[in-house]
């Protein structure tokens, strides 16, 4: 392909101006406290979400809002409200495609290789904080698509847990509207869903491989029973926990995962400063965490 340089006097791009320093402060605070980061190209999104809170709180400036998040007595509740604004509406089928591609092309082959020598050819994937079910159903579709390929002669199950009973009821009901299903291609709609009153209902086949259970991630006794997990997805859940609770849950995840296991968090979510037991790994256009001992375990 030939390229040419565009016209000698191009129209100069209009820049929106430097970001409000208090918006950057809010961004950094949210990352420090909750572990979710909004890069520069998403600052307008964060600003929009802050503006909603400003309106609600009847204040005018980001500076005042930053005070609400730091010094006012309402700061903890306000942080939760802001996090809700940041993550609201994110849930849909096939939400994080790079994560799913990495699972399919990098993570599954690595796990199958690590477990290949064992007699039990079985995979356990856990959607921890599954909300209304889009994530576990997506994971099940992905695995079912691989059943005749790399998962041939393997069995698999998906554990889907959430604290909220209403969310779990939604999961089990398995009926979804336009917004949730916006990323579903006709292929998946046809293969895994039945149409019902302008909505889509998951087929019994798709629901079949998933166990939905109520679980509090801070419940030590119940968490200790989540064993032999290959991959944990825990997206936009830990951001609501304080540092001590986060560490507690992460310690459980470490014990729940098999040595070769992977932990996926939400987009732009990080465990920095929380634990040394997991190491960040880079996958194509996404990141995940593996147990720090993994490399030594493999090389031994």
């Amino acid at each position: 392909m030939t390229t040419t340089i565009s016209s000698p006097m191009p129209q100069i791009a209009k820049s929106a101006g430097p970001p409000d320093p208090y918006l950057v402060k809010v961004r950094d605070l949210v990352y420090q406290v909750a572990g979710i980061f909004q890069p520069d190209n998403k600052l307008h999104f964060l600003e929009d979400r802050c503006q909603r809170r400003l309106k609600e709180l009847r204040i005018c400036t980001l500076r005042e809002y930053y005070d609400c998040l730091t010094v006012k007595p309402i700061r903890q509740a306000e942080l939760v409200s802001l996090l809700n604004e940041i993550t609201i509406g994110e849930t849909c089928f096939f939400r994080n495609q790079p994560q799913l591609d990495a699972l399919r092309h990098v993570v599954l082959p690595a796990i199958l290789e690590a477990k290949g020598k064992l007699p039990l050819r079985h995979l356990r994937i856990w959607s921890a904080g599954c909300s209304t079910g889009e994530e576990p159903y997506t994971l099940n579709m992905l695995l079912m698509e691989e059943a005749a390929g790399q998962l041939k002669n393997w069995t698999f199950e998906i554990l889907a847990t959430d604290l909220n009973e209403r969310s779990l009821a939604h999961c089990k009901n398995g009926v979804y509207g336009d917004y949730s299903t916006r990323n579903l291609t006709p292929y998946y709609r046809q293969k895994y869903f039945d149409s019902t009153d302008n909505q889509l209902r998951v087929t019994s086949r798709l629901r079949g491989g998933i166990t939905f259970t109520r679980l509090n991630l801070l419940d030590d006794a119940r968490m200790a029973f989540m064993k032999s997990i290959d991959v944990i997805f825990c997206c936009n859940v830990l951001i609501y926990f304080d540092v001590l609770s986060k560490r507690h849950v992460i310690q459980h995840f470490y014990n729940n995962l098999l040595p070769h296991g992977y932990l996926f968090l939400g987009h732009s979510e990080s465990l920095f400063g929380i634990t040394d037991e997991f190491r960040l790994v880079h996958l194509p256009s996404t990141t995940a965490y593996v147990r720090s001992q993994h490399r030594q375990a493999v090389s031994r």
Partner: protein
Amino acid sequence: MTMTVCSKEALLARLAKVDEMPSIPVVVAPLLRYLEQPLDQLDVNKVVDLLSQDKSLTAQCLHMANSPLWGHWQKVDSLRNAVVALGFQRLREIVISCSILKLVPGKAQIDPIVFWEHSLGCALVCRQFARRVNFASPEKAYLGGLLHDLGIIVNLWLLPREFATVLDMAQRQRIPLHEAELDVLGLTHCESGQLLARRWALTDDIIDVVGYHHHPEKAPNHKALAALVGLSDLLCRMGGIGHGFPEMRQVNFLEEPGFALLRSECPSSSDLDWARFTFELEGYLDEVRCLVRQLYRPA
């Protein structure tokens, strides 16, 4: 399995014809020579005079000066203001990078936009990375990022058929380009890039970057710079701004040999929050894509 299409010796003989490659725009050499002088002896008007002889360079300087990537938020609408806003150092980088882009052959197997996105993206990541870990010269790191894949251009010109096989293999198997090169050619763009870097009389540190960014431990002198550029290159490729296809693999940066080299020169890199740094990159890699698409369009 080695699929070498031709003996390495024969390929090296063809690469020796690096002198026959097209040269950079006429105005570039005098401009770069002028910019080599001490800063206090440089005259903005003289630079503007030289630069204005090349319309496309003028346009690109204006575009660049108006990009938030450089941290400028005021509208820059004259070449003189663009030169002032960018500064002589950055101007030099832009002149070099635009000149290199023009060297990508018209019927290249690699999309010039992809090549340019990767080079500019890597340059920006290098500079940001250098600042974050207190590397001595962020601007040198930027230049290294810009030029690190010079060898790809050499391969496109001098080994077009063989390089097409390389690209096809890398794309199909989703493996790094240099691994496919080694398999098909028995040599990589690092070796061919060094030939051109020497011919252009680039400085020793940049020659080390071009030649050893995939194996910084083998660099004769500037291991940490080569490592920093190599890690930035890898971050870009894993972040989706690579050579036009995703590399399906897993990377643990803390265990990369280049990271150990960088850490020995920049101890503060041990404390780097890789997750945050990666998320930050998403922000400006998007900006790189927009900028490159603004600057270049298919004929």
